């Protein structure tokens, strides 16, 4: 897939949201940011993003739960990238085991993030 994509970011830290927005809009994508799992679920019920960026530590739970829900239903094929500051080997393994397409460590490097997004959208 080429061209602008609709990307859902589930992220509660306003600074991180601003950064993702800056990076993605500069790359020509559209960002929809949701600050909690509940908001993300509600939004996902009526929309189909091209890609999801998912944080783990959210005010109402663990991002991995949302990942599992996404993988269970008809949107199972949407690429999901975990973007997390929890970077111990166990965290990475848990995310990959839960079915994310890539695990991106915070602090995010702009190039790494954009490459991972491009790869996932092209697949």
């Amino acid at each position: 897939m080429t061209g602008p994509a609709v990307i859902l970011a589930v992220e509660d830290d306003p600074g991180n949201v601003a950064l993702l927005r800056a990076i993605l809009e500069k790359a020509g994508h559209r960002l929809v940011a949701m600050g909690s799992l509940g908001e993300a679920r509600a939004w996902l019920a009526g929309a189909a993003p091209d890609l999801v960026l998912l944080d783990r530590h959210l005010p109402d739970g663990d991002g991995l739960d949302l990942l599992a829900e996404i993988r269970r239903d008809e949107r199972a094929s949407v690429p999901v990238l975990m973007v997390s500051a929890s970077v111990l080997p166990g965290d990475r393994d848990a995310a990959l085991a839960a079915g994310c397409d890539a695990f991106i460590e915070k602090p995010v490097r702009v190039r790494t993030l954009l490459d991972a997004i491009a790869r996932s959208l092209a697949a």
Partner: protein
Amino acid sequence: MTIEGLLGAAVDVAYVALFALTLRDYIRRPEPVRLLVAAVFGSLASVLTAPLLRQLAPTLAAPLSLLAIGAFVAQPVLVLWLVHQFRPVPRWVRSVAVIAFVLLAGWGIAVTALGTAAPAAASPVLVGGILAYFPALELGSAVALMREAKRRAGLSRARLATAAAATGLLGGSVLLLGALAVAAPGADAAGLGVRALALVAGVGYLVAFAPPPLLRRLVQQSITYEFVRDLDALPTGTPSERMWDLLRSAAARVSGANRVDLRLDGQAMGVTTTEISVPIETDGRRRGALVLTVQGRSLFVEDDLDLIRLLITRTVRSVEREEALAEREGLIEELRAASAAKSEFLAAMSHELRTPLNAIIGFSELLLEPGRGRTSRATVTEYAGHIHRSGLHLLELINDVLDLARVEAGRLDLKPAPFDVEAMIHQTVETMRPLAERRSHSLTVRTPGPVELIADAGRVRQMIFNLLSNAIKFTEPGGALQVELRAEDDIAITITDNGPGISEHETEAIFEAFHQGEGQGARQEGTGLGLALTRQLAEAHGGAIELHSSPGQGSTFTIRLPRQPAPGAVMHSEPEPTDGPRVLIVEDDPGAAQLLRIYLQDAGFQVLVAATGMQGLELARLERPNAILLDILLPDIDGWDLLQRLKLEDATRDVPVVVVSVVDDRTLGLALGAVDYFVKPVSREMLLASLGRLTFTTKVRSRAITVLVVDADQGAWEGYRSLLEPEGFTIVTASDAASGMAIASERHPDLILLDVLLPDADGLMLIGRLRADPATRDIPIWLTTPTSLSESDKARLNGNVLGVAERGEPALAALRTWLELPPRKPATVE
């Protein structure tokens, strides 16, 4: 001699020996029981040996006969008294026995003394009386002893049962003897049988009341053997109760106590007369006591207690071994938990550090990226803002982590000093009020009036700050917050909100580092360390933090502090100086103000905080601080405006101002009269160095301060000398600009007092030269002038000099005020 004669003699000797044995026992340990036992044997021995003695000393035959009859008749009464020692015998029984004894003994003695025929033949009444008297008392005693034996336990029961049997045997044998005497008078063989029975009974008494050591040892060994066998058979991990139980049952067997209680220290302890308390202690360490409750008289002897002590020692060893094992297990578990907690902390720490770094690295990469087209000025500002905020957050985080680490390592130096906690609460709340108002909270304070507290004021403020800022952050806009001070036995500072509340299972977890409550809505700013740190600080003061909350009901946090430091609290011995130079911080961001406050207070400054420009101006006028730290971005009048106003007013003109702001315009700041300029985040060392140059009072304590006086008038030198030298300052002098410059570069004085009129140059020119030379650039300068300067001249000078004063007395007065020197003593007034 016939066999019967030999046997008879043997029995006689045996009784005499028993009498001697028991008498020896009594002499060794004079107790009523032993006396009675010896008397019983004595009476029997005297009856048996009377015929022998009569043959050996015929002249004494009559008295001996009388004595023998008396002793013989006394025997049942003695047995009854022995029984009475263990089981009370009703008074009437004893009275009847005594009356019977007196009647019978009197009759017998009378009959014998009148010297008629053989007692048995001569007096059937006497024989009949004896036949009724002896069995009645002996058998009655036997029954009483047997009943008593049944009430007892262990060895005691066995011994009393033996005594009962022996008494019964004696009574039976007397009955038999009487019956034989009536049926077949003079039958020696029968008499011999009776003697044999009496001997058996005697041995029984001996075993019961004065057991020989050998027998005692045999019994003790068997009990000890069984006890050690059972104790050692207990598997590892057996609860100590099982061991104490074994000890109790062994002690009961040894002592025959009716009840054996274990009273370990810490439990109620009281020993009544029927109790024997044996302390449980090893290596001088007391654990409690074994209390043996005995109903009636105890049969104990020292040996039994020795054995019980031995059993106690053996039990305590086993208990201690178990305890040591358990303690080691616990320690290992604790270490494991500590290690897990540390890993968890590091993981959380890594997470918390990465979050602000994400913005710093991400946005700076965007700024550095060779962009498609130019990034707009507004975008740059926005990105820089994100980077800056994240950087500040990171700094705050690191400071909190360091604080926490210091507390946990016990390295936090608290500096307790008396202060009015009410004033502090008001001050802190006012600092935070703008923040609360931004979220439309109402914020009320309730205090009972001034309350003195001895604690580390800076740390107490930090605790209040942390709790109040949490309440502000986590309560939905429009909340009601209250800060209350109560002075009870200790000091209680309560911060109440009507926010989301905290569920019970979270009340402990929220005090852990990096934990934020569930269901708190969007993640809040903060390091996640505030509560952990607050609790540690309270505990370091010997106090505590209490939390009462439930979901939907708001939260109440209470800081409890002892009125003065608890003896065990980690306190720095040196109290915080309360006379240090005063610095006014004008800063609207409570976090930034708090940081500056901590820096300054740690360095010995007194700190005032103003959250707005107008408040800053007010405080500067009223308090005349030694220096002002000024932020530029303020909610009402901005810092530039405030700086100009400060420099326009006489009251505040000479107070040196240091700008600390995110706004980077050093040139403008110095032009408006600031003496120094820092862009946030400010380095603690540089800030303190700058303030140290401005305020010498703290330095004077640690080292000599050198002051260079550049003045053509040598009379002025003396004025400065008399003012400064008594305070420990060193004065060097120069009378013209050239030598002033030379001395300044050579001696590098801490302060220059410069007169504007010099013979070889204008004082202002010298200032320019001093400022141009890197060696002298940072030396603060006080300028004296012959007259008061015009406003424009003063404005021009500000920023380059600390203060300007008219020479002579006004300059000395200003200097004295500025250096916070005590007023001049009347004697030295010129």
